[in-house]
């Protein structure tokens, strides 16, 4: 049992629903209490489309006394198939359903009149309260791929790749895919299938035809791309495609796997570096002391946290003082890769642990998720919300990946650091704190501690005190309200 200020990811069922809502012809049946039903509202705000969320609620208990009310698991699955005629039904169980020990029914569906094929039932019987949103999305996508991409197919005549992106509710998902499609088009590689956004059963069945898989978000496409590698010998490119170095490395790897002429790929890379990529230009034109040796801390998922860590360290010469991930199931993978750019890598899903690290290390720049925003605000340090979960769903999202993404990263960095440079430095040195005051400070949540410390020291200076006492801290908090 833990008290948390927030959570970085949702339950496993949320990940399954995200995958279902990303695809065509997939219906999710969500076994849950009506009070656990809010996915359509979330999706509506994100998708801005006329399509309702492809999710059917099967209440763990019927919401109201009625003999016709839904609530029978098998009956609700059949009803969803009758009404929506999907190619696949994906079962998601809420934590309530999981803890109550309910298993999804074993059943099959009659063939569809139009297609002659029976909808596939994906029971997600690996679900448990310990499996979080991202891991569940990864596994749900694997099961869908296994269900439809289950026989070898001849390779496409021209070089082609499968693109594995993020599911819905990741604000940049479509923009990242569009940037990768653009770059692949430039080096002459066709797209065999894009998964999961917009993919249907026919796209999944086509996956074994690709020459390679390009995994934009390993946390979501890891299992499915490994299945294609093991089953159909389709190699994959899975390193984060962030920054000019990461993007160039990915394009060269794809070129190799697709038997392209290396000089042709290099010509495209040089053209992009000259015309599109802005980060190398920013790194050269910015005075060295603005970036070189500046202490940056990065916290997030896997892809963005690693990719941005590499970029800050390799391309900008910044010192990554620590980097962490909230994806505990990918901890070993993250630690192994993060060691390339930081001495302090860690995994935690407690926002206050991240806040405490920020408070004790006071980086010059914090790159994190929406949950780190109040920490940076409290400490008065520049902050970039570049990792999911993000608080903002832009109407016109710009990619962070690829060469176009390097421009977005450069702009974000420049804005954050310039704003910080224009702010006056804190007056004088830190005042000493007595033990009582420190004890009181420790009671304040880490994400508010920086602000409390600043206000107390300002208040003490105004009062002409030589040290911060418990009373001064309490007074400053009362005034700061």
């Amino acid at each position: 049992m833990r008290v948390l200020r927030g959570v970085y990811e949702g339950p496993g069922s949320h990940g399954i629903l995200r995958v279902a809502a990303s695809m065509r012809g997939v219906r999710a049946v969500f076994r849950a209490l009506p009070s656990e039903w809010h996915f359509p509202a979330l999706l509506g705000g994100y998708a801005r489309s006329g399509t309702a969320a492809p999710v059917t609620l099967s209440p763990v208990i019927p919401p109201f006394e009625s003999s016709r009310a839904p609530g029978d698991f098998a009956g609700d699955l059949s009803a969803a198939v009758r009404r929506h005629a999907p190619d696949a039904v994906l079962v998601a169980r809420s934590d309530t359903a999981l803890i109550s020990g309910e298993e999804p029914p074993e059943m099959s569906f009659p063939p569809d009149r139009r297609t002659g094929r029976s909808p596939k039932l994906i029971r997600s019987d690996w679900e448990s309260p310990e499996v979080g949103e991202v891991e569940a999305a990864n596994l749900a996508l694997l099961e869908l791929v296994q269900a439809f991409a289950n026989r070898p197919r001849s390779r496409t005549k021209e070089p082609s790749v499968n693109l594995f992106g993020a599911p819905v509710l990741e604000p940049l998902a479509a923009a990242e895919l569009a940037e990768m499609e653009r770059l692949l088009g430039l080096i002459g590689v066709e797209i065999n299938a894009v998964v999961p956004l917009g993919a249907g059963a026919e796209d999944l069945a086509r996956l074994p035809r690709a020459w390679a898989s390009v995994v934009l978000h390993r946390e979501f496409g890891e299992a499915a791309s490994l299945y294609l590698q093991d089953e159909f010998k389709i190699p994959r490119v899975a390193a984060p495609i962030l920054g000019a170095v990461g993007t160039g490395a990915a394009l060269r790897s794809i070129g190799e796997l697709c038997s392209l002429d290396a000089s042709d790929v290099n010509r495209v890379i040089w053209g992009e570096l000259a015309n599109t990529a802005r980060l190398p230009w920013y790194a050269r034109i910015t005075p060295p002391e603005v970036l070189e040796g500046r202490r940056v801390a990065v916290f997030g998922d896997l892809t963005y946290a690693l990719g941005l860590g590499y970029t800050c360290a390799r391309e900008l010469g910044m010192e990554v003082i620590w980097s962490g991930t909230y994806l505990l199931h990918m901890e070993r993978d993250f630690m192994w890769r993060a060691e390339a750019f930081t001495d302090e890598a860690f995994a935690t899903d407690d926002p206050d642990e991240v806040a405490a690290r920020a408070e004790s290390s006071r980086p010059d720049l914090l790159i994190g998720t929406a949950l780190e925003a109040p920490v940076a605000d409290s400490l008065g340090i520049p902050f970039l919300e570049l990792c999911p979960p993000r608080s903002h769903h832009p109407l016109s999202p710009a990619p962070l990946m690829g060469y176009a993404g390097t421009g977005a990263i450069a702009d974000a960095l420049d804005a954050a650091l310039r704003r910080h440079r224009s702010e006056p430095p804190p007056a004088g040195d830190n005042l000493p704190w007595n033990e009582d005051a420190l004890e009181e400070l420790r009671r304040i949540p880490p994400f508010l501690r920086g602000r409390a410390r600043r206000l107390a020291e300002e208040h003490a200076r105004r009062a002409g005190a030589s040290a911060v006492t418990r009373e001064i801290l309490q007074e400053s908090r009362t005034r700061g309200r």
Partner: protein
Amino acid sequence: MTILNEAGTPDTVSPLYCIGHLGEALPHALFVVVGTRAEAFAARTLLSTFGPDCARTAYVVLDPEPPERGALAAEVGRAARRYRECELCILVVGRTARLLGIDLSGEAGLIERRLHLAVHALELPSGGFTTSLEDSALAALLRRAPADAPGREEGPPKERGGFLSGLLGRRPEDSRTPGLRPVVLAGRASPDCRRRLAGELEQAGLEVAGFIPSPPPEEMPPVGPETVVAPLQPYLTETLRAAQERGAGVVHTLAPVGVDGTARFIRDVARAAGREINELARAREALAEVEGLRNRLRGLRVFLTGDTGLEIPLARTLAGAGAVILEVGTPRIARPALVPELQTLGVEIDIVEAPEWTRQIERVEESRPDLVIAGPGLYAPLTARGHLCRLSLDFLSGDIYGYAGARRLLELFITPLDRASKLDALEL
């Protein structure tokens, strides 16, 4: 009137959404959501729509193993100590916590004893309205309200003068009319709206003893056999039950929504408090003030998908202004609180109880209404399909009650029409 039970899944969101509204009404309360990552995620996601400081919230995320007795109390204690002026702790316990063996009342008692803090333990309703948790919270608060002292006329005269007089700092000698029972208004409303509504009731000669919820717990009005409890919202069924358990008089009447609803509300509250009044003149005056707005609703075809529990009073107001109601959806019909509303609604209006939200999309497409009052899951898809929508949650902001709120209510219906006509006039 036809009431059809579609036995479907209505377009509601988790009742955890209401923590945002309760946090605004109870700024010194700490809300602790107890459950698994699922509840924490849902609450955090839904509360993000209110802004970062809408409510003091902490999430207790349980492990799969049953917790030891007292463990929850210890964790809540740590969370509560972080906040200054924390007067109240509202534990919201999800079904998962129950299944994992949390002893809700035992843990709440421990927290209360250890922290000397008023603790209300609420079970997260498993369904119903988006507002169901608000009802549970208000019922819990009411159960803790002081009892109205028997034989208080015999003691020294208490400072009294009604809610409005109290706010204005006037504390006259006991001016209560003998035999007139004080009124407690149950339900959330904005501070301005509360003040105006209390003024409207006091103008009718009634004494408003206070509101539930009441931000500082010490200002909680007494509730007992001498009190009349009147709900502002028709979904407060548990709150009214709690009032009845205290022996208070409970008013089943129209919600004070719209001019007609407010007039009837004041008349019936007055009757329950022991005074016969005639609201006709005031109602006529109020109607004249909003006549222009009401005229704009005449003939408007409106579809209400239903999620908050306010949909039937809204439909009644719209129909009263001459709008054509195509469908009123509602997750459930809360009897007997809704009986007066149903009787006033009109025979030609159809109600769909527990509507299936996906079928409502089809019915909206077929009927092509001029305006849809839509739940949060339907709002974006229907807007994207070209329907003019107003989000149902906008009506929960708490400004629509009383005569003064009637204008605000009508504006909520009309502003989407105005904006749409301005946008339609653009040459894109």
